[in-house]
């Protein structure tokens, strides 16, 4: 039976947060750490790609490849489900981001400090689209720990962009990242209406 709330047609029953970043930065790991289901994989069709690199997997159809997107699900109450979508960061996948980002609360740009340049494309995209985002440094043990201010400077982030350090394998750490991006989205929404 529907609760009074979920039967209200104006109340959103589900929402999403996008996790973007380069190949191997830990997107699927992050999603899997907090998801109540095994991360699922879904595909969008691309018709003009030829090489099978990164998350691009060739399918046995001429002229057609697919882009895989991993996602997970978190039930936040009887009437609200949050989906996390992990998506490859490269510019050639921008075509699928419009669809993915419409209606999203915000995005987490996951970065590996050894390969900062892989964050440029998602950062450019979210800035252009005005989607609230935070930067989360996925701290690998064998990588140097740079001060977060240095990371912000190297990425040329606009002042006020939250930058945090996380471990994508730890639930509490990923939870904090989700809370932070949601708080930031709320701050941005309030600022936009001058509230």
């Amino acid at each position, binding site marked *: 039976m529907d609760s009074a709330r*979920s039967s209200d*047609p*104006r*109340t*959103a*029953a*589900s*929402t*999403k947060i996008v996790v973007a970043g380069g190949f191997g930065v830990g997107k699927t790991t992050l999603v899997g750490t*907090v998801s109540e289901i095994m991360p*699922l*994989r*879904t*595909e*969008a*069709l691309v*018709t003009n790609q030829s090489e099978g690199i990164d998350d691009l997997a060739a399918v046995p*159809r*001429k*002229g*057609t490849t*697919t882009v895989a*997107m991993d*996602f997970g*699900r*978190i039930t*936040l*109450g009887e009437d*609200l*489900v*949050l*989906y996390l*979508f992990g998506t490859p960061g490269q510019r050639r996948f921008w075509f699928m981001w419009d*669809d*993915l980002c*419409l*209606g999203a*609360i915000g995005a987490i740009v996951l970065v590996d400090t050894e390969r900062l340049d892989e964050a440029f494309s998602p950062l450019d995209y979210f800035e252009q689209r005005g989607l609230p985002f935070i930067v989360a440094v996925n701290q690998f043990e064998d990588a140097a720990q740079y001060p977060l201010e240095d990371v912000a400077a190297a990425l040329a982030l606009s002042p006020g962009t939250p930058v945090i350090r996380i471990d994508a394998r730890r639930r509490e750490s990923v*939870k904090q990242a*989700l*809370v932070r991006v*949601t*708080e930031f*989205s*709320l701050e941005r*929404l*309030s600022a936009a*209406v001058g509230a």
Partner: protein
Amino acid sequence: MATETPPGDPVDASAAVRVRPFTLTAGRTKPRVELPVEATLRRLGSASAGPVEAHLTRILEVCDRRSVAEVAALVAMPIGVVRVLLADLVELGQVRVQTTIQEDSTYAERRDLIERTLRGLRTL
């Protein structure tokens, strides 16, 4: 009457050939119903009144209380194809799409959603 265009998008033959999964959708690539990837679906009506096509039946069987993305993953079809088929099921009165934030959502609706999400995340 005779000159009226039939319902549905015109069949794009070249796209249907190039992208085989869209043959399930008679070449249509754009659903007529808004179906964000995170939108929750609810199955309506009785099983006996359901569609006969196997691919629609499969979708109907897994869709209740799941998102568009989950359905696509579970039936192993690309999201774009599943969207078109789900839109058909909506028009057949078999499926309902629950509310999500859309481009035309109000400030109050957005704020309500973000605050509920924040409360939920904090108590995880």
